[in-house]
């Protein structure tokens, strides 16, 4: 008979091993799935995981990993701070949208003037927009104990409608022949989020993501606030008795994740996406939640998890084009990855012991 016994300390070895185990398990299950769909499993797995990194056109795909992974990492870092403390910001998608609207709005307000301070202003606006949108669930939680999961989530739908309103109204391109969507920021040099090193895919958003990783690492390991976050998550009762101020924590965690999500939105709209349009948001806010968990809520882990997720997206697109794999299969694949990770995570916190049934 097997019995689960809680470990006194989470196993460090397994903490590093579980993501790898989960990935291998997903590859196997995914391979079976692809086989059921009539595709060669090895070719499919190779197309998704190998080709973007080392294949024929990897010189193009590798930078794309940064483009796709950057916003995911940025948002996930913010989310992980809250998740560690049991503060669940599920509305990052909404904060992403509002940040993009604010950032683009500020930039377009200056059009066609060129100046060095426009981009920094846009960055501030984007962060502020996301922060403000996250403050709604934060303040409601602090004042009325309203569940932040639901409020932040409802606000995603509100933000989507706001996006539609902006695309068709306030931010609509006056030179756009009446079509919805804002002016394309790629044509506006002062506001364009260009690649810092041409061809590397690394735009200012990606750089910010890297900075956020370092910042989060230092915060969690060296700063009192980071300690409070970790304490609240791991030992809530102890946190109550210590000097942790729950209100401050809620406001900080939600505010920070909102600001980072807003920044991601702003960098995306002024860079890869280019314009505010009705379909601007592509679910990064939700995917970032998966990235946060895949990275085990650890900054460096999130960095790798974000890149891995980006890999599945890009590899998935190649598989769609070359192998005719349906888009839904990739979504399923990503869901499986998270499932396996959560299941295998068991081994980090519990050890399996063999128990001899005693004779009565």
């Amino acid at each position, binding site marked *: 008979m097997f019995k689960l016994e809680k470990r006194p300390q989470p196993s460090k070895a397994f903490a590093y091993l579980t993501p790898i185990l989960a990935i291998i398990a997903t590859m196997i299950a995914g391979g079976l799935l692809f086989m059921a769909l009539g595709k060669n499993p090895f070719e499919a797995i190779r197309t998704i995981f190998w080709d973007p990194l080392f294949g024929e056109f990897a010189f193009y795909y590798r930078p794309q990993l940064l483009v796709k992974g950057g916003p995911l990492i940025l948002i996930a870092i913010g989310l992980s701070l809250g998740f560690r403390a049991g503060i669940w910001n599920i509305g990052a998608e909404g904060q992403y949208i509002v940040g993009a609207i604010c950032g683009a709005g500020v930039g377009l307000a200056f059009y066609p003037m060129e100046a060095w301070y426009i981009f920094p202003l846009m960055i501030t606006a984007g962060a502020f927009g996301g922060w403000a949108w996250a403050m709604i669930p934060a303040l409601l939680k602090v004042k009325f104990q309203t569940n932040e999961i639901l409020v932040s989530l409802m606000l995603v739908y509100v933000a989507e409608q706001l996006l539609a309103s902006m695309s*068709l109204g306030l931010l609509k391109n006056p030179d756009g022949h009446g079509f919805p*969507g804002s002016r394309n920021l790629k044509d506006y040099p002062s506001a364009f989020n260009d690649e810092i090193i041409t061809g590397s895919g690394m735009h200012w958003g990606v750089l910010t993501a890297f900075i956020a990783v370092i910042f989060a690492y230092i915060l969690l390991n060296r700063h009192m606030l980071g300690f409070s976050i970790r304490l609240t998550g791991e030992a809530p009762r102890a946190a109550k008795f210590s000097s942790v101020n729950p209100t401050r924590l809620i406001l900080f965690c939600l505010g920070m994740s909102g600001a980072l999500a807003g920044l991601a939105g702003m960098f995306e709209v002024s860079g890869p996406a280019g314009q505010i349009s009705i379909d601007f948001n592509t679910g990064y806010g939700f995917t970032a939640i998966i990235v946060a968990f895949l990275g085990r809520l650890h900054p460096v882990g999130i960095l790798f998890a974000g890149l891995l997720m980006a890999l599945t997206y890009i590899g998935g697109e190649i598989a769609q084009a070359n192998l005719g794999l349906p888009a839904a299969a990739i979504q399923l694949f990503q869901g499986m990855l998270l499932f396996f990770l959560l299941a295998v995570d068991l081994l980090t916190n519990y050890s399996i012991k063999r128990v001899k049934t005693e004779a009565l």
Partner: protein
Amino acid sequence: MKLTHLLATAAVALGMATSAFAEDKTKVGFVYVGPVGDGGWTYEHNKGRLAVEAEFGDKVETVFVESVPEGADAERVMTQMALQGADLIFTTSFGYMDPTINVAKKFPDVKFEHATGYKTAENVSVYSARFYEGRAIQGHIAGNMTESNIIGYIGSFPIPEVIRGINSAFIHARKVNPDVEFKIVWAYTWFDPAKEADAAKVLIEQGADVILQHTDSTAPLAAAAAAGNVVGFGQASDMAEFKDGPRVSSIIDDWAPYYIARTKAVMDGTWETMSTWDGIGAGMVGIGEITDKVPANVKAEALAMKAALADGSYHAFTGPINKQDGSAWLAEGETADDGTLAGMNFYVEGIEGEIPQ
């Protein structure tokens, strides 16, 4: 090395080297905004692709990616196709406009065709269909068949294409029925069966007995069928399964003739950038079979209008027409020019309500 240079070199190198497919095959790529099975917009584009395959057989190879979000993802998919050696790429949604132009710059030897857009380049053409011609016929039938004099219109987004459709349908409904009124609901989606069903039900509840839609699913027709005595039209595809019920006719997007012609142009080396706006005459807009529910004389008039639109003797927007605020737009006999139509942002006289801003 600049990435653009690198990409172009790679493409040229690929073009010269032996690739995965035979040297003389023309590779045509298709980028879809929705799923192939949507039964509407993307479904018809895919039929066009299949027609290209049927027409050219071994000489052509097609690839497609579906449900590609607009923006950076679209750019990546297009770049991917170009890198893999595509000679001609069709991008089938307005929102792909800027990505198409960007990718076209990086691959000057690849030809791009962008649907419903307005930006062209040396290697980018745009194409669209004069759906408003089909709407004229629908309006004529609707005006005749409505008994409550209320016609429901499910709009997608308040863009010129949709406004054109509403105006064209209204003008022709009013012509045969001066008491008719339009109730317009904006779904803010091209394809969302649940929302469309709700919109249709609401319109029916408020008295409409004819439903016109600019959204792509069959949900409004299903709602019309459930209501019993409501009439509707197929949109983007024939939606023939509702022939025994509410569907009396339809507008069919038929991209096959255009796609075949453009592929041939690439194969012959005669491809040039152009701006195509074809209607019933060129075969891009198909009118679905008008069922017997429609009275014989109405059907005859509708078919006559179709023939006139096809050979150019009749233009759907022929004066005298005033704008909604009463100001004159078209004088007697004057027809609307393409420029005004392309950017149409006003209702014609008689339509109540405002265009959402």
